[in-house]
């Protein structure tokens, strides 16, 4: 009797150990990153007000772009490095809109409207190319980004001002041909979206908390299987109540955090995209995409037009990326004509991978968590480098290393897992 109880205990024990172990291995990258970020945050000795201001603006800047990576990953095409094409489309349109002098929120809307057809065309061409290089979409996307960048450079360095007339001494180089290397958007579309409506941080916390509680409560009492979701329900309620409490605490104190102002419209855009992606995954097309992502051959046999679905996935990602880059640049306020697009490709992909996404699986939560963690490190790394090693440059190189390293490491882990699985399959059959 006692013996039986013991074995049950051991079984239960080993079950927990197993759970913890599989949790650790499944979320290795994210956990490592949380530890790294905390360490760097501690070492950087950073003022909390500066940090919060910076992270709020960075999340609102980058989240939309990172979310644009989800759909192709679900469709089995890996991390979509070709979003830099969407970014280039956005930059090209922004240059013209700045030249025409359309500013503020109308300028943003005009950019979005005009960049959409360009992004659709590029998405179609990219998708067709990916259909010729199945299994190597990522490297193809990466190289395609460099290739199109060459054409983009040619257009804006050699043609604009020469063959394509543009009489604008602010944008065009003094020689009369070619666009300047940096473009200043202040007085143009800078903060065109962010400044439509801003609310202070505590108010946003309280509103978000209230909405969260109402939504959670509503969905909880409607769901039939209440016992199962009880834990998550209480947990999320605690989080939302904590948000409200924090909001009230900040408001009643005199910290500078009261001065952090949230760009509400930008965050509504991001929230809208999250809802859209969540909704899309339940549509027929979304389901088809998931099937294609799991197994192309099974999908083809069950009558799904695989190639077409893949092209649609890339087109959607491309359009979202071009909008995301417009949001990114209106927040930055200036951009490097010939280099900004390259950066956002690497950094957005590193961000979503840090959030725990893999080449085959990416969710909205991973994207948001990833943006938060990645940018935390980005903010604090130079200061941490200065404090630990006496050299801010070291911290800057370190964050670049992290971006490349994370992409390389997750790719390797995924490739290794796939290899092991296919070996096991071979042994099994």
């Amino acid at each position, binding site marked *: 009797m006692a013996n039986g109880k013991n074995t049950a205990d051991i079984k239960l024990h080993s079950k927990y150990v197993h759970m913890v172990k599989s949790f650790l291995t499944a979320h290795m990258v994210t956990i490592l990153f949380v530890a790294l970020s905390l360490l760097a945050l501690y070492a950087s000795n950073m003022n909390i007000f500066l940090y919060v201001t910076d992270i709020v603006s960075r999340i609102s800047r980058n989240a939309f772009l990172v979310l644009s990576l989800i759909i192709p990953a679900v469709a089995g095409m890996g991390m979509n490095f070709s979003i830099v094409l969407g970014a280039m489309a956005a930059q090209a349109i922004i240059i013209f809109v700045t030249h025409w002098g359309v500013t503020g929120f109308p300028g943003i809307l005009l950019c979005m409207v005009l960049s959409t057809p360009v992004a659709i065309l590029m998405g179609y061409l990219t998708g067709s*190319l990916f*259909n*010729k*290089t*199945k*299994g*190597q979409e*990522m*490297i*193809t996307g*990466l*190289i*395609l980004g*460099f*290739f199109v*960048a*060459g*054409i983009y*450079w*040619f257009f804006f*360095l*050699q043609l604009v001002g020469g063959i394509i007339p543009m009489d604008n001494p602010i944008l065009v180089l003094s*020689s009369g*041909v*070619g666009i300047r290397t940096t473009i200043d958007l202040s007085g143009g579309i800078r903060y065109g979206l962010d400044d439509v409506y801003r609310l202070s941080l505590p108010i946003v916390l309280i509103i978000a908390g209230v909405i969260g509680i109402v939504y959670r409560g509503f969905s909880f009492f409607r769901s039939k299987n209440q016992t199962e979701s009880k834990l998550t329900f209480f947990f999320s309620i605690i989080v939302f109540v904590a948000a409200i409490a924090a909001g009230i605490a900040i408001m009643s104190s005199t910290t500078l955090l009261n001065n952090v102002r949230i760009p509400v419209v930008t965050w509504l855009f991001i929230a809208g995209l999250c809802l859209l992606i969540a909704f899309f995954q339940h549509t027929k097309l979304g389901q088809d995409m998931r099937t294609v992502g799991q197994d192309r051959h099974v999908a083809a046999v069950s009558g799904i037009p695989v190639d077409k679905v893949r092209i649609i996935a890339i087109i959607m990602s491309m359009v979202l990326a071009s909008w995301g880059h417009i949001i990114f640049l209106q927040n930055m306020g200036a951009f490097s004509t010939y280099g900004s697009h390259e950066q956002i490709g690497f950094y957005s992909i590193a961000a979503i991978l840090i959030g725990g996404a893999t080449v085959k699986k990416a969710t909205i939560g991973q994207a948001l968590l990833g943006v938060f963690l990645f940018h935390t490190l980005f903010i604090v790394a130079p200061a941490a480098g200065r404090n630990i*090693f006496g*050299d801010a*440059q*070291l911290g800057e*190189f*370190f964050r*670049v*290393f992290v971006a*490349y*390293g994370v*992409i*390389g490491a997750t*790719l*390797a882990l*995924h*490739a*290794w897992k*796939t*290899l092991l699985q296919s070996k096991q399959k071979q042994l099994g059959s």
Partner: protein
Amino acid sequence: MIKLLKNIIATVSVPRLIIIGFFIALLISAVVLQLSISELLSSSLVRIGMNSVLVLAILPSIVCGTGPNFGLSLGILCGLVGGLTAVEFRLDGYTNFFAAIAFALPLAVLVGYGYGLLLNKVKGAEMMFSMFIGWSAVSLMKMFWLVAPYSSPEMAWPIGRGVRVTVALLNRQVAQILNNTLIFKIGDITIPTGLWLFFFLCCFLVWIFLRTKTGIAMHAAGDNPRFAEASGIDVDRQRVIGTILSTILGAIGILVYAQSFGFYQLYESPHWMPIIAVAAILIGGASIKKASIANVIIGVILFQGILVVAMPVFNIFTQDMASMGEISRVIMQNGIILYALTQISGGE
């Protein structure tokens, strides 16, 4: 006649024909514009020679089946460490050059071994993985250069620590040492004999290696891994050997490049060199799965030749010739890699 033409197009392929056509057009315009042909030829010979070993380094990686080595930066970094160490010991001339190779070799073998083992774990995604491991190594080494304990005056900043962005080789009598060995002139054309002899020596050694027992096994492992495995070849081991060889040649390649250039460039330049080298061998007719020494030689001559001739020709047409040269390089190199990617057996 049409059939013959079609055959030629099929074997040479359209992108390569475009590149060859571009080269011919450049040459014709150089003649028409009365540019100094002998000068162009002399600088082409130097440019081709200095890039040649780096392109050769891609060959073993394709032959052994890991695909073009986009992580050649690992080898390049080994070479740079070797080169800096030789400068640190204040060695001069050929002693410096060969000491640099000697310092770099064990490092390259070690790094290549580890890198090869990793590549065996990521079969099917080698290119992507090697690209990113190369880039992360470059940024990791940037941090190393910032704190590296080198002290010779060529390298150290006057104040503070770390290594300069470029390390000049003139004072150590290494600059152009290969180029100037047995240098002679035919008319106005300068022939950098030593440089080319060194390249041919490397080619010859690789050629011999590929005909040894190991080399043949490597070929087999790269051509058809399953068949090779069935006939008793340890495919994983061959892939590691190929990767080591590629890394070693990368290390030697950067030393050859740097002596001709006259500087070690530490921070930014190792980043893009692998892609340029891969593009050159692909232009020479190699594919992701198949390559030969001929591909190396043709490729480096075509690619670097174009880049040399393009500059003065563009100079006539546009005020901004530097960026035009850069643009045509970027379009060519990435275009040919994209083309090669679409040729991998229908993608399945």
